[in-house]
């Protein structure tokens, strides 16, 4: 525990030092698709697993540069709320990330961490479904819940032209718990508004 406290204090000092050496920032806007929990969900009765489905994802970030190669990039993003197969259920995902970017040539490596919120909103009601040899009316819940996960983000980006780049992000859930571990992949095109 002493080592942890030492590291925490050290990182706090480093953070302040970085903050004061940061000298420029770039605002970005990204549009892409978020493929959630790849390979984790069954999609038909033959046992097929999910890969990627349409799930539009919007994000905005500010890139602070410490050196010409190293940037820190807080980012907020969300998926467009969707109902999917049932209109009574509305789902969206929201991300708050702190990324670092290391630039080399026309590429940049991305590493970071943050929070991933899953919002589920259900409108109540009921459904008559098969149940044994007959049918039964099953209730649906009514209300909204948020699930909150801490995630690690690893990714790679490439610059195109002066103001555009393409990024691929891998959001890792529950890295150290084998059975709960999951991956979501965001593929984005990004517009850079430039240095302020």
């Amino acid at each position, binding site marked *: 525990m002493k080592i942890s406290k030492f590291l925490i204090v050290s990182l706090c000092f480093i953070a302040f030092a970085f903050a004061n050496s940061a000298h420029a920032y770039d605002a970005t806007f990204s549009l892409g698709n978020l493929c959630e929990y790849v390979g984790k969900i069954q999609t038909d*009765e033959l046992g097929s697993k999910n890969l990627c489905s349409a799930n539009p994802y919007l994000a905005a970030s500010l890139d602070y540069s410490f050196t010409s190669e190293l940037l820190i990039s807080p980012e907020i993003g969300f998926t467009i709320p969707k109902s999917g197969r049932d209109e009574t259920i509305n789902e969206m995902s929201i991300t708050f990330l702190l990324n670092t970017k290391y630039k080399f040539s026309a590429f940049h490596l991305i590493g970071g961490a943050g929070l991933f919120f899953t919002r*589920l909103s259900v409108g109540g009601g009921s459904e008559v479904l098969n149940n044994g040899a007959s049918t039964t009316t099953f209730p649906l819940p009514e209300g909204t819940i948020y699930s909150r996960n801490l995630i690690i983000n690893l990714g790679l980006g490439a610059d195109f032209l002066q103001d555009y780049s393409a990024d691929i992000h891998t959001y890792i859930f529950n890295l150290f718990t084998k059975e709960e571990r999951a991956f979501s992949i965001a593929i984005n095109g990004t517009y850079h508004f430039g240095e302020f």
Partner: protein
Amino acid sequence: MKITFIFYLIFCFNFSAMAFTLNNSEAITFAQDEVSVNVARGNCSHIGMNESEILRIVADAVDQYWNRVPTSRLKLRAGSVLDLSTTDYSNGSICLSGTACEPNPDLAVSNGVLITCNHLAANFSSSGVLAVTVPNNISGKTIIGSLIMINDQSANPFVSKSRDEKIAIIAHELGHSFGLGHSKVTDSLMYYSTVKMRTSLGYDDFRGITYLYPKEQPITCGTIQDQSLGPNNLLLNWLGLLIGLFIMIFLNYQLRYLKLRPRF
């Protein structure tokens, strides 16, 4: 408050079935994040398995299905074989009456989930029914205990199922035990019937368990870690620290930018 339970009679003869549903109108849940699944000793005569084998099926069912949801805090654990000979789980009635089941208080499960074999025909609406499940010990909106009865009549359909099918059947019943109802899509584990190949949870199952038991991973920046909680919680602390650092950097930079404090 009186909560009406629906009597679960699953997996009938005909194969034909968008949202997840609940098994009651009050969205009742277990209060704790970790729930043990135990097996009653000495009640199984016709399903071709003993209690230890059922427990191994339970372990595979929770690992392959419910414990794999990254957005759910509920963790089911295979418990132990319990000697409960003072209660007639092998021949007792799971409900006192009717289709809207009023749980039999004599069979109330004191904690977690209990699986038992049962050969009372009245519990199973037809010989094709594999198992029935009822949360039968409730306090307010909290499930204290749930009971799963496997059809152990001499002509039961459970005995002829493959091991993978038995794992899926037990996983389905566990879904009922912690609050879920049926789904109308075939790719969901909570579909009322078996499908050709069941390998993992479907979208409805994911959403259902997430809705009832949403994960709430904390921001733990600056807190003291209880080392007995294991490495995953240590990771959460460090991720929390990173977020805290982000906030500090952002505020520091903005304050300097706005000339609200001198630069170091």
